[in-house]
């Protein structure tokens, strides 16, 4: 299957407190590309700029300089509304803390990105949400309040939600960081399965070297620079 480019960063820089004496640059010219179906680990020590980089890629923040292309769209030219639309369609988020919305059930949380995009719920959305919940093994809990689910189950719902819009890229920030070993393994395996099934690209921030080794490629960021970017050797 032909691999298409999902993400391209060229010379991306990010500074905070621009124009102030406290101005600080945290990313110093990041170059990075990802193609469809890639399963990439992003590692680095705390404070190295991983989260800032993830926010830029997730279109939650804008680079100070450089180019960021998502599915071919040059994001520099897009206004806030267009960025929001592109984010909703092309990116799925999985956070360390599941960040589900407590006022809604598991199925409704999964359905939420579709509802935001289309405005009103419909039967097709409900069906798609249930299919995704079935894939993550939580169909029987579809009508459960997310507050009543275990940590592993909540993260599975978050994974289903991240895939609801069939995004080109899923950004996962320490998706297993809050789980016990067994649940962490289960969640990681699920991410891998979704990657293989849907050819969705995953960029996973992790501090766990064992999980990083199970990815296809590892990008290491130190002090705001990519210091290594290499595929994981397979025996």
């Amino acid at each position, binding site marked *: 299957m032909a691999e298409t480019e999902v993400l391209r960063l060229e010379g991306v820089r990010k500074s905070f407190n621009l124009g102030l004496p406290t101005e600080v640059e945290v990313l110093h010219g990041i170059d990075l590309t990802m193609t469809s179906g890639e399963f990439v680990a992003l590692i680095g020590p705390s404070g190295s700029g991983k989260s800032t980089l993830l926010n830029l890629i997730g279109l939650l923040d804008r680079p100070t300089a450089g180019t960021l292309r998502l599915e071919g769209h040059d994001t520099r030219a897009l206004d806030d509304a267009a960025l*929001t*639309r592109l984010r*909703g369609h092309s990116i799925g*988020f999985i956070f360390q803390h599941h960040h589900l919305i407590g*006022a809604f059930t598991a199925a409704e949380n999964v359905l939420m*990105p579709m*509802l935001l995009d289309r405005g009103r*719920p419909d039967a097709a959305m409900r069906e798609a949400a249930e299919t995704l919940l079935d894939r993550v093994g939580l169909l029987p809990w579809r009508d459960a309040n997310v507050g009543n689910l275990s940590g592993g189950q909540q993260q599975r719902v978050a994974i289903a939600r991240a895939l609801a819009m069939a995004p080109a890229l899923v950004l996962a920030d320490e998706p297993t960081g809050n789980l016990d070993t067994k649940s962490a393994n289960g969640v990681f395996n699920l991410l891998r399965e979704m990657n293989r099934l849907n050819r969705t690209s995953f960029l996973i921030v992790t501090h766990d070297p064992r999980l990083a080794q199970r990815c296809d490629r590892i990008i290491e960021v130190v002090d705001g620079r990519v210091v290594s970017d290499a595929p994981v050797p397979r025996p």
Partner: protein
Amino acid sequence: MSRWLPFEWIAGLRFLRDGWTQTLFILAGVSVGVAVIVFMSALLAGLQSNFLRRVLSAQAHIVMLPPDEIARPLRAGPGVVQDAIVQRPAQRLRSIDQWQTVLAQMAAMPQVAVATEVASGAALAVRGEASRSITLTGVRPEGYFRIVDLPANMVAGQLRLNSEDIVIGTDLATDLGVAAGDKLRVTAGSGGSATLTVAGLFDLGNRGVNERTTFVALRTAQSLLGLTGGVTSLQLTVQDPYAAEVIAQAINGATGVRADSWIRTNLQFFTAVSAQQTTNTVIRLSVGLSVALGMASVLVVSVVQRSREIGILRAMGARRGQILRVFLIQGGVLGLAGALIGSMLAVVGLLAFHASARQADGSELFPLEVDPQLFILAAVVAALTGVLAAMAPAMRAARLDPVEAIRG
């Protein structure tokens, strides 16, 4: 999740349900506020309408009177010195000049509903050793009783006004010891005197009026008061009682006859009503403002509590406008629901107050006439207030930086 509702409504209602304790408290606050406003408005409207009805059913809207007599200055001439003080002459009982023409002119005016002539003056009613001073009012029944609803207030005898009949109040009848069918001697200030039959007794709900006011046929009054063919006033009712003052001024300008409207003769009442309305408005505005501020503060807390969820929604593709509307809808729904509950509380309060608050004679203090428009107005105003109160928190939510919000 209703398939008919858009995301904003679904999320707004879910957030309200999810934070049900907060929702209940703010709903209680809005309901009490609306109940106070509706209760006060309905009570004030009822009391005013009752008072106006009593005033307007017992007097004409406009009374036309002959001009006051004034001292005539002597023409200046040799040996004539003008006094520094000119004494006001005593006002004799006089007829309105050419009243028939003026009456016809009044009856032809489109704003005038009823116009009738009255001859009235002071007299003494004597029965044996007892005597009482009275106001003798000579009327043409078919005209006058369309202005003052005396038939509805008759308590004994008949409302019959033949040339030798007199209809008196219940208190005068008690003072003089007479009943329907008895005779009375009436002597007017001009010297005219007649023995009249008490045809009936009325009760206008006011002791002073019941003691002094008497009604006779117009010709009887004219004869007793020495006003042959004359009348002391023309009394009018107009289509719009609140336009009475403007119409009175127009009549005065057109005819030269003095015309006093009920608005001018009850000026103190209007001043009291105006003061009451101002106080009421200030109280209502204060209550409304307190409710709005309370609602805004609760919604601000809600935005702070939900900032992470707002950030997540923004990350998932929620537009700023969608987030804004989620909180505006919450404000509007709280206002509307509070208005419905508050209106029901107000009705219960009004029914209880109406049942317990009575006049000295046991009759109702005010008529329970609750205008449905008041509830519609309360609902619309409360919903708008809710939306306005939610504006600041909603804008704050819409402006939240998703990165900061998710980080918490």
